[in-house]
């Protein structure tokens, strides 16, 4: 599968502050890629640069083989984008928003748009300013999908939506994904959403892409090891790929990426009374991974790097 989204050392500075640091990313056609990160990690900055809405300080980005800073209108028509907060013109009715958006596109799936609006029970006569946040998201999604895009880029699409609306929104998204080989990049900090739809994830920590691998692989790679001792836990010797180390009573709680024989040997050398290995779900793996000492976080980008899990 060819790469649809490619970035080379994409970097963004706001004054002296580095919002995104040398992002190297390749997203193959048909991939559903979840870009994760805490607030201010650089997700929106990266997405805006991918779409040429913001300009990189260094590096470059390509979408559908074209430089993001110089996207031609024809290429832009093949990319749908849902910006954070689903900005639409509040004074427009849904019908007017459809008419306005449609006028820019040669390819427009009115039938699909109608189906989505019907599904969400949204009348074209309703004024956008009077819609709830969830309904706005639904309209924005319908408008984006009606263009029959090859690439769909969503910036925190479920932000601020209640659980039921979020679920409904994601169900629609899954249906859209199932349509022929679409590539979807979406950022989120709701890990449950990502877990449901993304087959690959990237984790940005302070503007640095620390993780770029299949979703399941990430979950399996981050493990917690609890070592129980008779008395106070001893000092831990230098340990590779250690994300976090917390003494809790007589226990030593360790979070490790790519737990392997070397780690186990090291832990055994401390002679714990008991050793317990705990698997995480995506949310816990993400929290444990990003909560640690950020600069020293181990980076892993392929399955091979931690193949001996």
């Amino acid at each position, binding site marked *: 599968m060819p790469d649809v989204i490619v970035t080379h050392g994409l970097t963004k500075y706001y004054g002296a502050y580095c919002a995104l640091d040398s992002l190297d990313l390749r997203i193959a056609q048909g991939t559903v890629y979840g870009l994760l990160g805490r607030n201010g990690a650089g997700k929106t900055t990266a997405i*805006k640069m991918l779409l040429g*809405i*913001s300009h990189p300080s260094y590096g470059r980005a390509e979408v559908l083989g074209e430089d993001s800073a110089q996207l031609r*209108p*024809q290429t*832009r028509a093949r990319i749908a984008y849902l910006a954070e907060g689903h*900005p639409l*013109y509040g*004074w427009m009715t849904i019908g007017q928003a459809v008419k306005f958006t449609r*006028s820019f596109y040669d390819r427009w799936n009115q039938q699909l748009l109608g189906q989505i609006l019907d599904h969400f029970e949204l009348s074209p006569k309703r004024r956008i300013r009077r819609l709830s946040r969830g309904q706005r998201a639904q309209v924005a999604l319908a408008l984006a999908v009606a263009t029959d895009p090859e690439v769909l880029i969503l910036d925190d699409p479920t932000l601020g939506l209640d659980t039921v609306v979020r679920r409904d929104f994601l169900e629609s998204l899954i249906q859209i994904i199932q349509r022929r080989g679409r590539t979807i990049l979406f950022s989120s900090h709701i890990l449950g959403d990502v877990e449901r739809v993304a087959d690959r994830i990237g984790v940005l920590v302070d503007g640095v892409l620390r993780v770029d691998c299949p979703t399941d692989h990430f979950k399996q790679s981050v493990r917690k090891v609890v070592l129980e001792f008779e008395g106070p836990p001893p000092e831990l010797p230098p340990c590779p790929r250690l994300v976090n180390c917390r003494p809790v009573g007589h226990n030593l709680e360790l979070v490790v990426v790519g737990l392997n024989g070397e780690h186990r040997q090291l832990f055994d050398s401390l002679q714990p009374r008991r050793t317990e290995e705990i698997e995480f779900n995506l949310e816990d793996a993400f929290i444990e991974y990003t909560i640690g000492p950020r600069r020293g976080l181990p980076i892993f980008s392929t399955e091979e790097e931690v193949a001996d899990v």
Partner: protein
Amino acid sequence: MFRSMALKELREVRVIAVVAMIIYGIITIAAIDPRSPLNLFNYLGMSGSRIDSIPFVQDNFVGKFYFFAALVAIAFGLWQTFGETVRGTYPFLLHRPASRRWLMGMKLFVGSAVYLIATAVPLLIYSFWAATPGNHASPFEWSMTVSSWVAWSAMTIIYFGAFLTGIMPGRWYQSRFLPLAAAIFAVFVVVATANSGLNGSLWPCWIILAVDVWIITMIFFVAQSHDYT
């Protein structure tokens, strides 16, 4: 695409256009019939009715017209640009499959057209009133209106300056405000020149055109290179 974008811009500036027309209407009434109950300036203690009025030379109209035309130009320019920033709609608009130059060009086209039409109406009404014999006890030549028409066209500099300020990066009290401040200064110079010994000459129009083209070029450059964060 052209029609949709034009209608969108038209819909967004129409409130300002309507308010401007009301203000211009009051100014025109105040100049034509200072004792009219619709002359709201009377209630503000600013009647300024003159016995020795000479339209376009010594009257109640021109000064107020210049002042409000400049305010309306600023309102148009800022509303069309800063309004998108406040509503957060730039990402939606700029991702439409059209070049940024085309999108900004459409904004400028509609904004300047509506501004010029809305501002020309009161000037035309006042000009025809002044040209109609019996309405005032002073001589009238159409050439007397030229400096006001020069000022009318000069206000486009302020409109474009405000537009540029609206999309400029930077802080309001620093570089961002600079285009608008420079535009206001340029209009002062042009209008003062047009009102001086060169009254009746159309050459300031060429300067206005040159400045307009320069600011529009800057707008396209900034629109292309600016980060819409």
